């Protein structure tokens, strides 16, 4: 049995490795076509790694991406394509910031309240798509994309000083007001800067994610529904409720994606909060195969690309290389996983055939002897 496990691990790694190699080669082609060196940008990016401040930036970014990717992965495990993680995350962080700034509670409670509000808002926003899907059959892909756009407009309107926002004196950047210090999440001070404390919560959530999916009844039902909705239904899963629950969980986790930055650095929401985190999350969940460890390394990789590419401009290389590479990774991942999956299935079928034939032969020999 060991052999099959090793096989599975190898096959599991083959997908991402193949995808990354292809993406890397294609990016090099792009560089060569634009008349640039295909090696030097990578060298520069690796040199950046030596700076401690860059290291801290990468780790902080990894935590944010990790949460966004987990949110996407929860949906993926059930064949739900939650494209709305971005909108859920932004709406959640904004309203959580508003609530956080409005109340004054003792430390841990204050943080807990902010986090719960974020999860609740994210879940509700995703829940709209869930309800639409279960009651009206609306594809969650379409509804979540639209909800992203709606969230953008809603935030722009809510942040007006006439509504929930305010304009700090001497600045034209609207924000939601400063959260009192009791609502700040302590970080880990290093040479290169501070690592957001919530980053560790993010990684811990990876363990929760693994445990829930692989060790609980609920997780089994969720995975079964993703693997075969018809079989899951026949097994006793209420598929509609499962869709809604998975959407709510996905949204709640999406809501957390803004927490590292809000609680650890900005302490207020403004329109300069990063946009597109949810979409990067999709890339990462794909690359990490919805596996908490895989997602961690994928987050790390993408955060590395993001943060080290910033320095490329100085050396005369477009920093968009990182984005091109991310895009290519998505395409390569989808293709290579399908290839590896089919190869794996065929190979296993063949192997099972072989082993059974060997058993049968042995039986025959025994019988003959």
């Amino acid at each position, binding site marked *: 049995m060991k052999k099959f496990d090793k096989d599975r691990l190898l096959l599991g790694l083959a997908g991402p490795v193949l995808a990354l190699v292809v993406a890397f080669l294609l990016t090099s082609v792009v560089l060569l076509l634009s008349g640039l060196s295909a090696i030097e940008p990578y060298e520069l990016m690796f040199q950046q790694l030596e700076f401690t401040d860059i290291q801290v930036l990468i780790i902080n970014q990894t935590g944010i991406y990790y949460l966004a990717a987990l949110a996407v992965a929860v949906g993926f495990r059930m064949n739900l394509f939650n494209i709305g993680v971005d909108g859920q995350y932004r709406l959640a962080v904004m309203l959580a910031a508003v609530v956080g700034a409005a109340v004054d509670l003792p430390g841990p409670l204050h943080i807990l309240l902010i986090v719960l509000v974020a999860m609740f808002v994210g879940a509700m926003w995703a829940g709209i798509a869930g309800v639409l899907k279960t009651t009206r059959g609306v594809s969650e892909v379409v509804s979540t994309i639209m909800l992203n756009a709606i969230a953008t407009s809603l935030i722009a309107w809510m942040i007006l000083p006439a509504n929930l926002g305010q304009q700090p004196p001497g600045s034209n950047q609207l924000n939601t007001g400063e959260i009192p210090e009791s609502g700040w999440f302590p970080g880990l001070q290093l040479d290169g800067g501070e690592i957001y404390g919530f980053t560790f919560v993010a990684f811990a959530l990876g363990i929760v994610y693994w445990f829930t999916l692989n060790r609980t009844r609920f997780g089994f039902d969720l995975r079964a529904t993703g*693997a075969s909705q018809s079989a899951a239904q026949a097994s006793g899963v209420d598929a509609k409720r499962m869709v809604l629950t998975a959407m709510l969980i996905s949204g709640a986790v999406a809501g957390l994606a803004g927490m590292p930055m809000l609680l650890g650095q900005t302490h207020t929401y403004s329109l300069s909060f990063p946009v597109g985190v949810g979409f990067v999350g999709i890339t990462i969940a794909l690359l990490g195969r919805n596996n908490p460890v895989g997602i961690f390394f994928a987050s790390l990789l993408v955060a590395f690309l993001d943060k080290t590419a910033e320095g490329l401009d100085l050396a005369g290389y477009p920093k968009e290389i990182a984005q091109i590479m991310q895009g290519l990774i998505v395409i390569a991942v989808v293709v290579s996983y399908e290839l590896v999956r089919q190869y794996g299935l065929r190979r296993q079928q063949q192997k099972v055939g072989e082993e059974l034939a060997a058993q049968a032969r042995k039986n025959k020999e025994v019988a003959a002897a």
Partner: protein
Amino acid sequence: MELRGITKRFPGVVANHDIDITVHRGTVHALVGENGAGKSTLMKILYGMQKPDEGTITIDGDQVTFSSPSDAIARGIGMVHQHFMLADNLTVLENVVLGGEKLHGIGAAARRKVMEISDSYGLNVRPDVLVEHLGVADRQRVEILKVLYRGARTLILDEPTAVLVPQEVDALFANLRELKAEGLTVIFISHKLGEVLSVADEITVIRRGTTVGTADPAGTTTKQLAELMVGSELPTPETRESTVTDVAMLTVDGLTLTVTDPDGIVREVLDSVGFTIHKGEVMGIAGVEGNGQTELIEALMGLRDPDRGVITLDGAEISHAPTRKRREGGIGYIPEDRHRHGLLLESPLWENRILGHVTEAPNSKHGMLDPKAARKDTERIVREYDVRTPGIEVTAASLSGGNQQKLIVGREMSHTPKLLIAAHPTRGVDVGAQAQIWDQIREARHEGLAVLLISADLDELIGLSDTLRVMYRGRLVADADPATITPEELGSAMTGAATGHLETPETPQHGATPENGEGR
């Protein structure tokens, strides 16, 4: 056509060795063997999808080698696969022409050719109907037409009757005889022995990758053929000692289910269905597929919510209970389509063992899965139910159909169900596994299990059931005693020709029996 000494090795396995077959022009030649005996590999060799390591293929005296299906097609060999390869959103004509545009174009000439073939072999295809609107039997005819359109003179049919109901099988056989009469050759792969005997001119039996003998259908019984196939004496499906008790296990009363089709028309797919199954009783439901059997099972399983009617299991009303409650309450389920409803194909066997029983021991405790116990129990099922697999970590997809089914039967039986709903429990399962599954159902019945058996295999229905009902257009229209009924009588009742209590003419009979009332 002659095959001599064909041997095909895969790394580590010999799939075929020393195969010798002679197929005469203008005959229907049946190739029978258990699942996994090597029939499919042999056909792939013949169709150019795989190359033999040794041996020769001779067609009309010329020795040939095929390196791809197109070589085989060029030699007039065509294959109708078990799983149809048709584009649903194209018409019949478009499907036939697709990929063969060079032959007769795509216009009037192609249409003429299609109609000509259809008429000369009695295929009765309608060229302008969308394939998605066709039933299984019609799709199969389109597949045959496709092959003929490409000039095939020898047709290979891989398990063509697996998806057909008895009437459709007869129609297919009529088509095959038509083809034969026109001088075409048909190679027919099957493990349904009764059918093989009725249609074939010659039979070759394959066992463990090699040809073990030929049989002349005129002088062979299914039993002899089956023994040749498995290489041992077979248990007979019938053993009659009644275990029926008078304790009602499942009572269904006035069950009515309506569906609204896309045109907005409301149809009653179940119309006041009522019956009682007692402890220790197997009730068989016969019927042509599509007469409400699937819906009945789904209503019993809680996958569809009935409009009216009461379902009572062991004294508890479950008419609208969720599926999981019903399963926990003691309903075991062997689904009609194991790939869609019974298995997670890409998950390992032990996860498949959990499926459907995730809330029950040994699979979980207090909401937490117990993979260790589930694995251990899967190993027990594999051992006790003789599931042929190298281990429990392999995916369900890598097992053969018969072994998948044994796993499902083992899983459902492991929870000592009160009621087993078995839909086509031995469909697509080889003879050895079939006998085993029957044995297990019979054994459980002995211990007080109530079984609802739905099957298209009339011998199975008659052999296993204690009582029989016939379903027609959503109603239970007739009942019969399996001890006296013949498959022919049952078959005619399935078409709606007979109602009430069915009895053989010899037996004296007066009017309807009291039981009849609730079945109507």
